């Protein structure tokens, strides 16, 4: 026995002699000293309770009956402002980047006698993918993130967690999962990192696997666009905006439901266990500092997320152009894939083009819609001026997008299924990499990738079959 082991043995013996409750008595003296100090140094003026206004607000926003409706209304309001506000700057940016700058680059490449395939690859592929991502993503992000950050600064997020806590506990997950889920609404990779606030490894894994059900920023534009085209057009024009926003909120809420159901499933099967308790402190409400919030949310969130998208969009653009232009016996690689997967895709109410788009968009969900449009046009040989094989183009108005999709055989059902599949499919590669880094396990990373895909196909299949029956 070394001297060091002796120390441990001695400590173990002494622990028995001292008795088991000395930890408690230590804590007691800690509290005692703290309260002695406070008695000597702190004075309260007046008889009124501190934070009486906070309590009044909390009574309403964490109330059993009004808490959830207020949550949904706030969420809907944030989306509605985002949808309405992003439209115009989006058009402006795409006119600039996809219209003018694209034309300039293209003619510059041609006048410099650069070989056609390089021009195609770099300008029609890589550059256009980047340009699309910026014009589609930047405006909604620049509106959504600050709004969300304002709510966060004000102190609303812990109240959301407070409201949702009992739901998460009932399904065997940690109450703080409500917080990491909210972070996931911005970016799933960020949400996965945020799960570090959950101590129990079991509950943390549940939070990591289900974070993907929070619609991330890369998927909002897809949801908003498809909802506007296929759902909004079902109702009179003056209601379209409201109904579209409602449909997007519906998908987001559905995501929360899936998150709860999956958590329940996991905690009853492969991640069995009890929910642990925790203290959640409701911080005081603080008036948000508007200007600073705008600045930091732009730097911290918008630019970082945008940069990532741009970095991934360029190589994805190269891939899109390549698979549309490399042919074997006169048929492009893209067409091979589409023709091969179409029968299966039809079964789940999607089509081969959508599946291919989701393969290409593994690095960044943001480029799903442009990829679908481009592939639809080339696959069906549609005559739309300016469109050529492998070019991701900006369709000036929603109407054109709708026409292209309808020419590709899309119906309202396809739209609904795409919205569902956009919610339920594998996380993007960044999130997967983050999951791998955080869990250090290939097994959990693979489960996090495959589980949502399986759910996506199942849900789309059921919806399609039900729809066809009715």
């Amino acid at each position, binding site marked *: 026995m070394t*001297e*060091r*082991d*002796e*120390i*441990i043995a*001695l*400590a*173990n013996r*002494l*622990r028995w*002699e*001292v*008795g088991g409750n*000395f*930890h408690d*008595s*230590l*804590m007691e*003296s*800690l*509290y005692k*000293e*703290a*309260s002695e*100090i*406070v008695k000597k*140094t*702190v*004075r*309260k*003026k007046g008889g*009124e309770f*501190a*934070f009486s206004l906070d309590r009044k607000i909390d009574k309403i926003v964490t109330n059993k009956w009004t808490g959830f409706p207020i949550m949904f209304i706030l969420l809907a309001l944030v989306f509605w402002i985002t949808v309405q506000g992003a439209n115009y700057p989006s058009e402006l940016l795409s006119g600039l980047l996809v219209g003018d700058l694209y034309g300039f680059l293209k003619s510059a490449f041609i006048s410099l006698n650069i070989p056609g395939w390089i021009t195609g690859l770099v300008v029609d592929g890589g550059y256009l993918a980047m340009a699309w991502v910026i014009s589609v993503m930047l405006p909604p992000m620049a509106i959504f993130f600050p709004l969300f950050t304002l709510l*966060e*600064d*004000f*102190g609303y*997020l*812990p109240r959301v*967690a407070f409201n949702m806590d009992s739901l998460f506990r009932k399904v065997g997950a940690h109450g703080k999962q409500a*917080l990491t889920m909210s972070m996931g609404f911005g970016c799933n990779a960020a949400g996965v*990192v*945020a799960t*570090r*606030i959950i*101590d129990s490894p079991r509950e943390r894994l549940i939070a990591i696997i289900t974070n993907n059900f929070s619609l991330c920023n890369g998927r909002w534009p897809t949801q908003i666009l498809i909802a506007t085209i296929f759902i909004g057009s079902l109702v009179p024009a003056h209601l379209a905006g409201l109904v579209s926003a409602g449909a997007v909120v519906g998908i987001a809420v559905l995501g929360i439901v899936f998150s709860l159901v999956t958590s329940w499933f996991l905690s009853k099967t492969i991640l069995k266990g009890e929910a642990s308790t925790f203290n*959640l*402190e409701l*911080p*005081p*409400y*603080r008036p948000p*500092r508007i200007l600073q919030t705008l*600045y*930091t949310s732009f*730097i*911290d*969130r918008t630019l970082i997320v945008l940069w990532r998208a741009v970095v991934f969009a360029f190589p994805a653009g190269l891939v899109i152009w390549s698979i549309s232009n490399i042919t074997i016996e006169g048929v492009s690689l893209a067409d091979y894939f589409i023709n091969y997967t179409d029968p299966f895709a039809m079964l789940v109410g999607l089509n081969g083009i959508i599946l291919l788009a989701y393969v290409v968009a593994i690095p960044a969900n943001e480029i799903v819609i442009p990829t679908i449009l481009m592939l639809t046009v080339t696959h069906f040989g549609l005559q739309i001026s300016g469109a050529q094989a492998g070019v991701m183009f900006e369709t000036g108005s929603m109407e054109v997008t709708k026409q292209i999709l309808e020419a590709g055989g899309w119906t309202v059902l396809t739209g609904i299924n795409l919205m569902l599949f956009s919610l339920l499919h594998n996380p993007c590669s960044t999130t997967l990499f983050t999951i791998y880094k955080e869990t250090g396990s290939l097994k959990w990373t693979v489960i996090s990738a495959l589980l949502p895909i399986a759910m996506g196909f199942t849900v789309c299949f059921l919806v399609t079959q039900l729809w066809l029956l009715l």
Partner: protein
Amino acid sequence: MNKVVPDCENCPVHNVNNLIKLGIDMSSYDYVIALAGNPNTGKSTVFNALTGLHQHTGNWPGKTVTRAEGGFEFNSHKYKIVDLPGTYSLLSISTDEEVARNFILFGQPDVTVIVVDATRLERNLNLVLQVFEITDRAVVCLNLIDEAERNGIEIDVRTLSKELGVPVVPTVAREKKGITELLKYIDEVATGKYVCKPRRIKKRDKKLRQAIEVLKYKLNKVFPDLPNLEWVALRLLEGDQEIIKAVKSGEIGKILQSSATSINRESYSGEIKQ
């Protein structure tokens, strides 16, 4: 084999090796500051105010899950500052608490700034007193003093400072109020101009006192350079697995080696003053 690190007269950082081990790049800094405190007291806001960085802040507890680092210069001293995750205590160990405790204990920062919420002083003092058990050099940043005032809470800062034995600086970090004062005290504590006498908890229980003394004696024989014997003895008695592991492997001697040099340095700076 423990290699004694010689006290380098040219570099004031006494514990460079441990900090490098914790992943801190110390190549161009004179002092290291740790920023500790309860969740949601505004640590990250204080961090931003000190460094001019824009760490994301949010009004919810548990926002900072990893260490954030930054630097600033004050009084021609270069400071590295590390923003630790918020914790309520250093005793029950969860991941974020471990990050904070290990850093304060093993990293031995030159100054630990404890950010406390002025509106919830009593609960925040629990952590302050626990930090005092591990470190000698601390500054208490009494943040959110404006919120306290709005809610009719009056705090006698001078008495509080006397009771705690360390500088107490009232601040409103959101509006950058009190930050210069805070910097001044950080600098004074780091350079040894201000000598802290942090209040330690009295252990009244006689049996416990004896047990601690016995363990301290034993520990001192095996690890003569170990600072804070009392704290280590207490943790052993409580059955803290990490500390037990560190004692078993002898790692604790290496980790806390720096203390000897830290004492040297104190006497060194004392000489200068004379």
